[in-house]
Each structure stands twice: as C-alpha cells, then as structure tokens.
C-alpha cells in the first residue's frame, strides 16, 4: 500500500470529522505554540545576556584587584602591602605572554562633571591608558582617544560617553542633528578638561531598532534618549539595560592626569608605587584560562615579594549565571510545553480509540479484502500523525501571534527572538506526540479479528 494513498485517506478521515479533529488538535496547538513562545523568550534573554557579557569585555577579560585583607599568615605584613601598582603592569607586559593589553585603571567613583553650571554625577571616572578602548570594548564615534604622550604630560583631556554628552549638551541641536562635543571644555571636579573624543552610543539591537523607528517618525528632539535609560522589567533585562547605561556614562582621562590632579588621596612618591584600582587584561585563549591565571599570579607574586595583597576577578561567574538562568527558564518552559503536548497526546489517543471502535467494521472489511496487519497499523498511525502534524502547523502559525502579544503585554521584558531551530524542534515534538499517541490505537486496530469485525452488526 503506498504511503501517499495512506496520507491522503488520513487527511480525508480527519476532514470528515473536522470539528472533532480541531478540538483534538487544540492540545497540540497549545503545546507547540507554548514551546515556541518559551524558546523565543529564553532566546531573547540569552542573546541580551550574552551581549552584555561581550559588552563588558567578554570571557577573555581578567582583572587583578588590590586586596586589603591579607591571608592570616601574612597579617603582620599589612603595612608593607601596596596593592596592585604600575610595577605589576610592566612586569606582566614582559613576563606573561599568555595575556595581552595589560592596562592599569584607577576608578574614581561619582565624580562631578559639569558645564556652564549644568552638572551631573557620572557613575565612574576612569584614569587609564589608551588600550582601555580595546580592553573594555569601546568604539570612538567622534574625535579620538587620548594618547600616551598626553598621559605622560598629565594633560587635561577626556573622552566621554553619550549619556554624559546628553546631560551636558543635550543629544540633538536645533537642526535635529546629534551634537558632537569634541573640542568643547567641561569641568571634572571643577577642573577644566578638553573633550578629545566621544564613544559611540551602546544599546541593544532591539533598542536601536526602536530608536531608528522613532527617528524615522521625526521624534528626534528629545533631550535624553529614552531607549538607553535603565528601565524596569525583569531582573536580567534590568541588568543588561544597566550595563548599557553604565557604559554610555563613562568618562576616561589619562591615568597620570587623574592620579596627579584629581585624586587627593594619592600620596606623593614614586609613580611606580601608586596603588591602582585594578589592572585589567585579556587572555589570548579562553580555553587556557587557568594556566593564564597561574602565569599572571606567578609574575605578580614576584613583584609583590610574596605578599598576597591582590586577587583575580574573571567573568566566568557572570557566564555561569547566564547559563544557569537560561537553563532554569528552559527547563520550566519545557515542562509546561511538555504537559501541553502530553494533554494533546492523550486527546489524540482518546479520539483514535473512539474512531477505531466506530470503524471496527471498516477494519474488518479492509482485512477481508487483503489489508495486512501492517496496512491497518500504518493507516491508524498515519491518521494520528497527520492530526498531530496539522496541530503542529497550526501551532507554528499561532506562535508568532502569541509571542508578539505576550511581548506587547510585557513591554519591559527582553524582546523575544524566534528561531527556526525552535520551530523545527516544536514541530518535531508534535510529530513525535502523534506517533506515540497513535501507537496504542494502531496496535489495537491492527490486532482486530476480521471475523469478529464483520459480525459486528
């Protein structure tokens, strides 16, 4: 018996009881739609979290920080502890080939930045080297990064993020063009600085899309860009929004300038011995994380003469957090979708069983004219699979509507991302449900004794 004929008659059988079939399909539709919806939201979240990991330097970034609390056996040497210094930076540049872009950073919290009496506090002011641009995944939109010469001379130059520009200059000029603040003077903690560069505006693809649409509609004259603001919504979404906001609020000045002119807490003395907030670097190969950390540790132990007044921070924890969050959401989503499909499957079993008991005579007739057990089995299982597949297709049609509706209801959650992979998997599950659900009725039908079936009056 050829499979085309079987599928055709399966479709006909379903069509003959279309209302009953539609009710039966409902469970599968729900299952497939919820699977796709769940996967889309989780994928959206995952993309955003991974994006924010990349925005903060990626997994390759490792940070060496000063640690005031020494291990117990070194407590008596606390007076000797100088923390992380430029000595470490030079030592690492020469002695740790597994890392690159070793960059010193002094982080000054909540400095006041102002211009013509209009001021704001940015979350952090970084005194660093030009390599910080590459290290912290920045891109210059206007002007340039300061250079090592300016660091050497301790010049009052700075590079700012777009949020700082927005606060001090506004985002757009009277013509609706974005303002380029390069060359302007601002005050940082009441000291004049010249802006030599501005970073590009960082935001998620989704926000960029929304913003471009808003611009296309002509809504350009807003003092602040509402899309890069840190908004409500779920925890992970907030976290990501916050990362963009923070990145856009950056102010960078040369390390030397910050240390010598802006930070009163720094004692005089050898520049080499000045305590840094952190030394940040990248490793060449993420798979060599632990040997790289070991190498850095060996080098730093030598410059610190064995004093453990430093510690490492990697982004692995963040990455683990991401994986765990995604895993948890996936499991709970799969659970719900699985239950829907189970209910759908039971519906199919039910309808197929009642269908074959209505068709005992038909099965007997088919057997009497030469249908084999396998033919009958194939017929019933095909009907069941066709039913489930129809449900699956309808589910796939419904799911974008469901995803968009839900995304509309919860404006502040991460935007869902529908993938063809998720749709294929969901459809595959519907087919699987259909085959499993059809199994028992098909075996039952195939086993029917033709004589009994024909006697059935």
């Amino acid at each position, binding site marked *: 018996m050829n499979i085309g004929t079987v599928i055709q008659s399966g479709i006909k059988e379903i069509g003959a009881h279309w209302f009953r079939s539609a009710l039966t399909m409902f469970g599968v539709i729900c299952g497939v739609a919820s699977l796709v919806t769940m996967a889309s939201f989780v994928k959206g979240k995952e993309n955003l979290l991974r994006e924010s990991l990349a925005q903060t330097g990626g997994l390759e970034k490792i940070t060496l920080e000063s640690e005031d609390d020494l291990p117990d056996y070194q407590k008596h040497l606390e007076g000797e502890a100088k923390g992380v210094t430029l000595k470490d930076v030079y030592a690492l540049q020469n002695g740790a080939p597994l890392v690159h872009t070793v960059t010193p950073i002094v982080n000054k919290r909540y400095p006041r930045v102002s211009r013509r009496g209009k001021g704001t506090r940015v979350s952090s002011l970084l005194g660093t080297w030009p390599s910080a641009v590459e290290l912290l995944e920045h891109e210059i939109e206007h002007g340039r990064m300061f250079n090592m010469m300016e660091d050497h001379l301790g010049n009052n130059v700075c590079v700012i993020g777009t949020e700082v520009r927005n606060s001090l200059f506004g985002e757009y000029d009277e013509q609706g063009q974005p303002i380029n603040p390069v060359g302007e003077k601002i005050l940082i903690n009441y000291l004049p600085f010249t802006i030599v560069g501005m970073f590009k505006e960082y935001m998620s693809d989704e926000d960029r899309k929304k913003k471009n649409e808003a611009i296309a509609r002509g809504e350009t004259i807003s003092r602040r860009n509402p899309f890069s603001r840190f908004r409500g919504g779920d925890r992970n979404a907030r976290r990501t929004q916050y990362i963009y906001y923070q990145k856009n609020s950056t102010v960078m000045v040369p390390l030397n300038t910050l240390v010598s002119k802006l930070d009163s807490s720094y004692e005089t003395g050898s520049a080499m011995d000045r305590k840094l907030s952190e030394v940040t670097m990248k490793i060449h190969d993420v798979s060599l994380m632990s040997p790289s950390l070991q190498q850095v540790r060996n080098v730093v132990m030598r410059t610190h003469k064995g004093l453990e007044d430093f510690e490492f921070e990697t982004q692995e924890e963040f990455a683990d957090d991401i994986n765990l969050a995604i895993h948890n959401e996936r499991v709970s989503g799969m659970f719900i979708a699985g239950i829907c499909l189970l209910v759908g499957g039971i519906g199919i079993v039910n309808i197929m069983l009642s269908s074959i008991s209505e068709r005992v005579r038909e099965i007997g007739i088919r057997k009497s*004219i030469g249908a084999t057990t396998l033919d009958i089995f194939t017929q019933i299982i095909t009907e069941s699979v066709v039913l489930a597949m129809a449900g699956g297709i309808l589910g796939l049609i419904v799911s974008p509507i469901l995803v968009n509706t839900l995304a509309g209801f919860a404006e502040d959650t991460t935007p869902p991302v529908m993938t063809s992979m998720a749709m294929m998997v969901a459809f595959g599950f519907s087919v699987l449900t259909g085959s499993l659900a059809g199994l028992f009725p098909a075996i039952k039908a195939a086993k029917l004794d033709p004589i009994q079936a024909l006697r059935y009056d």
Partner: protein
Amino acid sequence: MALLELRDIHKTYHLGGETIRALDGVTLDIDPGEFISIIGPSGSGKSTLMHILGCLDSPTSGTLKLDGTMIHDASARQLATIRNKKIGFVFQFFNLLPKLTVRQNVELPMVYSGASNKERRERAMDALRLVNMEDRSKHRPSQLSGGQQQRTAIARALVNDPRIIFADEPTGNLDSNTGEMILQMFDKLQQEGRTVMLVTHDPEIAAVTPRRIEIRDGKIANEIDPKLAGDAPRFEQVSSREAETTP
C-alpha cells in the same frame, strides 16, 4: 489438482465452559470452475466454513490447501496476500465503505495489492461494467439500492481476478427479483470460467448450483455432486423442511 482441499477441519469455540463445535470434521475438494452452494440451517457452521475456506479464519485442527499452498504454514501477511489476490468475498450486508464512492470501493483491493492510480481506475471501471454499474461510479453506497450495492460488492470481489468467489447469503437482504438478478450474475460469472461458492440457508437458491453441500451441526450431512451419481430428491426434501424453520 483441486483448487481447494479441505481435510478433516474442526473449529471449536469455548463459551463459558461450553464447547461449541462450529465445524466437526469437514473434508471437501473444490475444483476450478465449479459452482457450489453450501446449504444448511442457521447456526450449522456455513459461515465458519466459508471463513476458513476464504483464509479469514484458521481451523482448530485439520488442513487446508489452496492452489497448492498449505494454508496452515502461511503467515498472517501471506494470508492477507492470498485474500487479496486469490479470493473475493461478497457478504449479506454488502460491506461497502460508506465514505468512499462506488469506484473507490471497487479500487480498494488494488490499493492493497499496489496497482498504480491509472490501472486501479481502469480495472475498477472494467469490473463495474461487468455488473452494469459503470454509470454509478461516483455515487456513495448510501445513494444506491440494495441490489446496486451488492453489484458493487461483486465488482469489488472480481477486481483482482480471484481464483474463487465466496458469497455469504448474498441475496439475504434483497427482494426476490433483485436476488434473482444477483444469482444470475453469479451464474454468468461461473459460465465465464470463474469458481463461485454460494452460502445460503435457502434451498431455492442452492438449486441454482449444480453441486450442493449440506451442512448440519458442523458436519457435511449430504452432498449432491453432478460428477458423482447423486440423489437429488432426498436432498430437496430435507432442505425445504429445514428452510421453513430458519429465519
């Protein structure tokens, strides 16, 4: 060689501790081209015998050889193929599939034997022409009279050109004129060289066939075979009395 060779067939059913001997030692040979009727009162085992002959049912003991094949050794799959290719059934209640058209019903045996769409259509129309139903090919069984339904069923039984056609009370649900026409159709088929077996409780119907086998309580009680010297009068007597007592 006989087309069908039945040797000491027994079929017993067990119903709540009671043993029912539906067939109790039947031995029978059927030659190609024969026109036979199985006659006997209701419950005598006629249908059971026909089911076993038609490879729909298997005996409790005894052997059946069809066209040289020992049916005892055949797998369920082989039995299905035998039913499909070598046997045609016609039933009292027509047993057409109500959702299919007349032509699709007739095509059904070829669906399982794997003929192409075109061949199926052509052969179905040929078979319908044989029973004068070609102009009704697009109708559904519910739109047909009993006689037309039975003719469709005959076309379906013929379509794979079987070695033997079994008809279980084929006129049982028809008025006498229509029944007469159906019987004439079987007669014509037999004259064209086919082997036909009628199963009936009605001696008038059995009278159509040259060879008659009477079953009582699962045994062959009497047999008229034109090949042998027969005693027709006694047979007629017995069965007409019997016929009055059966519904």
